[in-house]
């Protein structure tokens, strides 16, 4: 029933999604505090595309990805998959919808149960659904093993017999066994040996093509995102700083954080000298973040009003919204109050 939704809208849509986690206080009656892991995120993922989520550790990428596929219930906002509000579904239908959405995890060492054989690991989703016969499952697992570049002999071996790259192949086979339409790849290569990154990325791209999958690709590697994603968001401390087509963002990064992130990426092109923007200080804590722009403590262009006035996403060019007061400007009253005056970036944090 879910599959018959109108094909016009985006496959996945998030509207003003926030996810907060409670923080345990030092004593039982201390004021309740929240980790604002994801704040007010809206985005749309279209059928067949690869959508990138980039940002540094702790900025909320995994939490956002989990909210997309029904693993973490948002504190606020809606997630629509094929036009249907995921978190309003009855449990039975919800489970059905969840099968369409799968995830590939960053760490192939901890994400595979060491006591299960490769066969048991890959068939597990099918086994849980409980509709296929043993022979059918075996045939399916075999087909997938070949697809991901493993042998029939590997079927009854255990995860410890495999290298990181091979384990990730096993994880991929398991993720696609229920023929999902939507696959979240959460840093699928960052735990692997560098010489196998390209293999796994190419495999993922091949599978996407042959099975018409839609990908959300979480990464801190901007070069990979640039090469494989059509659209992307740049996140910082739980909020979207800039979004749009990756062509637009890489050709014309507008947010000070995006610029800093791009310039911090070390490249192996030793022939080209580059200017670096070195940010001051550390990423601040996501617990009770400041009310204004979340980047203001480290922003080289910060203005007086940035600390207190939230920067709303505003489109500079069509389909390329940026959340920064440099772009959206202050109101005449705020300018009169001097809120547009620069402050020297503060160190520390």
């Amino acid at each position, binding site marked *: 029933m879910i599959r018959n939704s109108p094909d016009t809208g985006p496959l996945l849509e998030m509207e003003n999604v926030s996810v907060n986690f409670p923080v345990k206080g030092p004593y039982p009656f201390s004021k309740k505090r929240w980790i604002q892991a994801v704040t007010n995120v809206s985005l749309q993922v279209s059928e067949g595309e690869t959508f990138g989520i980039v940002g540094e550790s702790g900025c909320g990428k995994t939490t956002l990805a989990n909210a997309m596929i029904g693993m973490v219930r948002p504190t606020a906002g809606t997630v629509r998959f094929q036009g249907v509000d995921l978190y309003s579904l009855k449990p039975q239908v919800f489970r059905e919808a969840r099968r369409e959405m799968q995830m590939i995890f960053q760490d192939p060492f901890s994400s595979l149960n060491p006591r299960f054989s490769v066969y048991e690991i890959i068939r597990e989703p099918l086994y849980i659904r409980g509709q296929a016969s043993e022979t059918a499952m075996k045939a399916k697992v075999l087909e997938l093993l070949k697809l991901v570049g493993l042998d029939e002999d590997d079927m009854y071996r255990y995860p410890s017999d495999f290298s990181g790259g091979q384990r990730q192949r096993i994880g991929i086979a398991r993720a696609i066994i229920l023929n999902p339409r939507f696959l979240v790849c959460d840093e699928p290569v960052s735990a692997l040996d560098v010489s196998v990154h390209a293999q796994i990325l190419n495999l993922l791209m091949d599978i996407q093509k042959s099975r018409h999958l839609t990908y959300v690709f979480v990464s801190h590697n901007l070069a990979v995102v640039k090469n*494989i994603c059509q659209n992307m968001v740049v996140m910082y401390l739980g909020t979207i700083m800039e979004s749009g087509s990756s062509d637009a963002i890489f050709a014309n990064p507008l947010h000070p954080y995006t610029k800093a992130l791009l310039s911090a990426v*070390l490249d*192996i092109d030793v022939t080209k000298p580059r200017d670096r923007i070195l940010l001051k200080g550390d990423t601040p804590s996501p617990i009770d973040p400041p009310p204004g722009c979340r980047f203001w403590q480290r922003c080289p262009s910060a203005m007086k009003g940035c600390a207190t006035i939230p920067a709303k996403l505003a489109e500079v060019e069509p389909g390329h919204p940026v959340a920064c007061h440099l772009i959206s400007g202050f109101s005449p009253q705020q300018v009169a109050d001097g809120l547009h005056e620069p402050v020297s970036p503060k160190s520390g944090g």
Partner: protein
Amino acid sequence: MADTVLEVRNLKVAFPCSGGVIRAVEGIDLDIHRGECAALVGESGCGKSVSALAIMKLLNTPPAVCRADKLQLDDLDLTHLPDRQMERIRGKHMAMIFQDAMTALNPVMTVGKQIDEIYLRHSRLSRREARQRTIKALELVGVPEARSRANSYPHQLSGGMRQRVLIALAFACVPKLIIADEPTTALDVTIQAQVLDVLKNMQQVHGVSALLIAHDLSVVANMADTVYVMYSGKIVERAAMQELFVEPLHPYTHGLLASVPRISDDRQPFVQIPDAVPHPMRKPTGCYFHPRCPRSSDQCQQRMPRLESLDHEREVRCWHPLRQPHEVRS
């Protein structure tokens, strides 16, 4: 050579274990000049950390079995130096920066106190003077509000700050050599950029030689003067950084460089190297890279090539390098 700070000849490390022997390091040579930053790159398990620990004589023997024909630090011959004397050398002449600052720092002592100790141990300073030096050192590595941060315990600092503290600690005694083992691997890109900047700066300001260990070629491209590429326990290529990146000669180096996605171009599919690094107990015959190498021949499958020098300035271990060597080093 007069200006060589670290000279390592034929360093070998093995770990005997139940199923056989893991030959983690199979006879490597290193020469690091004064003020130079040499990088040791290679994938997980190729023997980088074990090499570093063996040079510092920090490996537990047993289980490890270490041997070197020569281990010379500036004018000090460490080849046969007993452990007791190594301890003094380590605090004073060689220092190490680890990937995981949490395990390298004492969790129950403030970071300031840990740096004070180094100054107190190596110079005649009062506690007050030592603390002054510590605060200066913390400022130098970019720790904000150094005076108060000095009173923090390691767990109260962020990963980036802890790594800065480790750098301050390592440089405190102005050693002859710093070994930095994946100093920024655990950090975010913007923090990594800061910390590498600090490391490079400190190295240049103090004229200290460095051995940087990394698996990330882009880190190496931004830090090193000379690069040693390791594969399965052996050095397969050595060259000046620029030359290595512009014209890699070993098929492994070439493949690695080609497979790194770059911001500056769109190449899809990505260039890939087949298969994976061999298991340390099941290394293939001949050249260890042959099952993955596009240039492999019968000769490659049977005999391990020697590390041969090319243009005096670089070396490559390959029967069919991307360019032929002109002379053979014995």
